[in-house]
């Protein structure tokens, strides 16, 4: 038998056939838990030896069954997820955890329960604000979630196991950040396309295996000679779900490298650690409510400010992006969103104001989550590259 592949090759294999490992583990009697978006707390799954498996859509597969259950004016990514569910592509899941990511995301959990009927399901109603009360609420919600998982597995989640899980997940976060460090040089050592493959791969396998994969990738990337070439543009990619390499492939086929991103199949879930607090759940609640920066959360400079200062407000909401732009030396930002995504859509004008103010050029691209939709975007990206070069 051939040597099992490692590093980037392995990442690509998993990217192309995501469920393969999950199916193997299921054979061995492990429970596989699907989750949508990045708000369902993974540490609690890992603590109970459940394998977290992120649910994605497939922009290469036409949506044919989901339209019966969800109007086409809704997020095509979620419609695609549902479509795959209805086509029995997620039948190997033992359960599914959803959270209040957005309206359609919440609705989907009910629709999924009605139509796909995965045996176990749980919904976490993550609040939108960072008010003190919200933190308390999130904490309570996580207690419920913990109980639900315990009932599901029939095992207690000990503090010890939970702490251990937090440590492995933090390790994963650190490894991802280390990987992103390798994107800082010019040319970057790993391309945007490869990055998505790696991230999607680690969101498809148990966390410890993901860490091993990350380590392999990091050492391979550091040493290889056939990495990306220097290009005139170093881009930061911001946006809603991007679970396919098609868009970065198109961009990197032009005179640009995607060197940094703020998307949830990218840096978003990994750039802050979970603090191991005395009461472990406190730290988890704080992380998942406050640390993940995503337009679904209402963030403002100071909730008790009686006067709004627009620019300062934008600063608080988006300054991490200017840090990214500075540290990864990007000279342009591509804002990307699937059509009908409200949470990202409302942020676009403000975010562009902010970037304009800093003199960072940006462009907004909207697509309907099909592969074919990307071709017409090519001229736009190229035009943008001509503007910034």
């Amino acid at each position, binding site marked *: 038998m051939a040597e099992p592949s490692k590093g980037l090759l392995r990442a690509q294999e998993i990217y192309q056939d995501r469920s393969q490992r999950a199916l193997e583990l299921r054979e061995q009697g492990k429970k596989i838990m699907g989750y949508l978006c990045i708000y369902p707390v993974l540490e609690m799954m890992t603590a109970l030896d459940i394998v977290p498996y992120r649910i994605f859509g497939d922009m290469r597969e036409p949506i044919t069954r989901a339209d019966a*259950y969800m109007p086409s004016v809704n997020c095509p990514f979620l419609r695609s997820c549902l479509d795959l569910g209805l086509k029995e592509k997620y039948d190997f899941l033992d359960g599914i955890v959803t959270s209040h990511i957005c309206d359609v995301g919440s609705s989907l959990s009910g629709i999924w329960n009605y139509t796909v009927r995965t045996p176990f399901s749980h919904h976490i109603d993550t609040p939108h604000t960072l*008010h003190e009360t919200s933190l308390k609420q999130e904490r309570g919600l996580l207690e419920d979630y913990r109980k639900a998982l315990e009932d599901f597995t029939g095992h207690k989640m000990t503090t010890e196991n939970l702490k251990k899980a937090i440590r492995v997940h933090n390790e994963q976060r650190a490894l991802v950040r280390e990987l992103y460090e390798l994107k800082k040089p010019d040319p970057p050592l790993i391309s945007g396309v490869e990055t998505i493959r790696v991230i999607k791969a680690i969101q498809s396998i148990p966390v410890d295996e993901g860490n091993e994969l990350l380590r392999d990738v990091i050492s391979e990337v550091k040493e290889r000679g056939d990495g990306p070439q220097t290009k005139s543009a170093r881009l930061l990619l911001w946006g809603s779900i991007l679970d396919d390499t098609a868009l970065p492939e198109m961009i990197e086929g032009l005179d640009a490298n995607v060197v940094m991103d703020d998307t949830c199949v990218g840096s978003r879930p990994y750039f802050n650690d979970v603090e191991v607090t005395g009461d472990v759940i406190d730290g988890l609640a704080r992380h998942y409510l406050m640390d993940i920066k995503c337009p679904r959360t209402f963030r403002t400079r100071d909730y008790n400010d009686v006067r709004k*200062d627009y620019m300062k407000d934008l600063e608080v909401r988006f300054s991490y992006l200017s840090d990214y732009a500075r540290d990864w030396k990007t000279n342009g930002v591509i804002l990307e969103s699937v059509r009908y995504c409200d949470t990202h859509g409302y942020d676009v004008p403000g975010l562009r*104001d902010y970037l304009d103010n800093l003199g960072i050029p940006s462009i907004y691209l909207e697509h309907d989550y099909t592969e074919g939709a990307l071709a017409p975007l090519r001229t736009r990206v190229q035009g943008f590259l001509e503007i910034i070069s």
Partner: protein
Amino acid sequence: MTTEAKPRALNRLQSMYALRAEVDKMYEGGVEASEEGRPVAWVMLEGWSNAILNAMGVNTVFPENYSSLCAAQGVATPFLERSEAEGYPTHLCGYARTCVGYSSRMVELDGKIPPEAPAGGMPKPILLVASGEVCDARFKWFQSLGRFFDAPVWTIESPYPGLRERLTEGAHERNVNFLINELKAFVAFLEKLLGKKMDWDALEHTGGGTNEINRWRWEINELRKARPGPMNTRDFWSAVTAALFRGAANPDVITKGFERMYDEVKERVNNGIAGINRPEKYRLSFEGLPPWHSLGFLEQLAERGWNFVIESAYRPPRPITIDLSKYSDPMERYVRRRYRRLEDSLEEDYGPEEAGLIIDEILCDGVSRRMGLRHIRDYQVDGVVLHVLLTCRSTSAGLNLLQHRLLDVLKVPSLVIEGDIIDVSAFNPAEALRNAETFEETMDHYRKVRKELGMPW
């Protein structure tokens, strides 16, 4: 052209006009307050903040409603286009886009109300009260208005749990406390903003008034079960805004208005008069928000004998007396008056037996097939119109599932009409009418099916 051979197909309620006028007064009141230097806030409909703001002497106006007013008067399009020019994607909520366009126009005019604004316009706000309830649009939208106003935004968070999670032990009390603390934080903020203390006694009054109004609205809806249906949804939409978007208006005035409406509807029931001036061939329910720009379309459906006897949105809650004597904290009283345990409201609505079935469904599947269909049965509805909105996710996302459940559980068919609350270009009336004709056959079919199954209508 005054040659009206045939009376109009819709039979409008006279009492509706007075109520409708109250909404204009609310906006006039806002402008007046602003001119006198009193504070005006823009708020979202969610039922929590308005009474608190009014108790603090803040006038409230409602951009959601204001946008539908613009649409109804046919002046929304320039605002929509303005919002597009500001770089807002066109799929965003029509209310929000109208409001963005309006705000941008205001900035252009140095904070003055645009002269083309209907009903006197909405004055510049000192505060924007967003809401985490119902949909994402309603907090993202106000947040993004920061481009136009230096008014702070406060988002009122409210729990929006999954059904099964709502039944989890301890969840209800946690949610109640969440609300109480959340609203108290809001009050603390308001006190800081306005430099004065909350008037808790006033809250008892402003908060309680809604219950009276809702009680009359409930009674009116009870009357609408009659055959023929005495009140068409068109009148419901015209009048309901007075209850929902009451602003600082005296609740007693609105209560009186609905009381009069009750009398008029009652009179109709006694005399067998319908909400349409044509034989009631089909009884329908309208699910989703209405096409504010084309309410006249209901006239054309009434012409075919379609009587919309009930609607899904903004149905008043069943009036119940809640024993609040245990609770002395005014905020707790305020919250408990409205935020109920799911089990309790189900039991009141469906009776213990069916409520039990629903709860079992929820515990087992995480969803219920039966829940939320009560009005279809009670009003003996032949068919349902599902208004799928181009720009509103939260009211549209579940409609297709509803369509399946209605057929599965009650054998009631639905007609999907695509359109929008504000954007008239999303609606094709000719096509909708064509499909309406075919849908009559579908309704006939399911009448037979229900009969065969021994269902009561």
